[in-house]
């Protein structure tokens, strides 16, 4: 398995874990057609676009777009961002011996009314990571 698929697989498994599922936050990947109307929900995008320490390594950011009902205040988004922190911040996930994904500190920014659905308000949770393979 190559580094990009390794990153997707390992990070996605966090959101498929019982620990994350118990948080009851509907979670979808990017490039996915969501047909149910559950709100709030988050959309995960993994962007491994940074330089790594060697040819098998790469750095990047995980972006979670958080969608909450418009007009409901920021608390629901902050609650979800805190839940994401609980599962990600400063965590290192071993994939195999010498292969790991390490997360750092996060940021959370308020974007505003969603351009595609004005019933939703969108915030963006961002956390950088390093994928290292020696």
């Amino acid at each position: 398995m190559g580094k990009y698929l390794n990153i997707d697989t390992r990070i996605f498994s966090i959101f498929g874990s019982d620990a994350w599922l118990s948080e009851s936050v509907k979670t979808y990947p990017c490039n996915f057609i969501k047909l149910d109307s559950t709100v709030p929900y988050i959309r995960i995008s993994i962007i491994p676009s940074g330089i790594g320490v060697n040819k098998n390594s790469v750095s990047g950011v995980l972006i979670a777009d958080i969608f909450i009902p418009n007009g409901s205040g920021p608390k629901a988004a902050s609650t979800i961002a805190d839940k994401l922190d609980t599962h990600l911040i400063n965590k290192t996930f071993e994939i195999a011996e010498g292969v790991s994904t390490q997360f750092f500190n996060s940021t959370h920014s308020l974007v505003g009314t969603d351009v595609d659905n004005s019933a939703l308000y969108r915030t963006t949770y961002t956390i950088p990571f390093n994928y290292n393979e020696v």
Partner: protein
Amino acid sequence: MGYKALVNSNVNKAFDLVKDLADVITLTKKVSTSFDFNTGIASSTETAAIVTKAVVVEVNKKSKDRNTLYKNLMLKTLDVGDVANLDKVSLLGAEWKIGPLIFTNNYVTIVEIYRENLWESI
């Protein structure tokens, strides 16, 4: 007969009156989708095929498009209900994907449909 039924009846009549300008299409809609984060696999379930008539009201070909064909399709809302991005339409033997919704009311729905094809006369 109420006004809504009356209008829908006339919409049906209009689609019949335009004769071969209306094509019989088969619409397949996604009704639920899911994504398994442990396997990375997206899955969906689809409705039974909806067979109805539709009128191609516009054919678009933009200079920036090298191999994508677009058409605007007018459908009977009563027959198709809500349509969503990536629902499928079989039109004249080819499969098209539903794109952006252009217009809808209780009676007619106009959507853009598109498909990849390098060489085809439209």
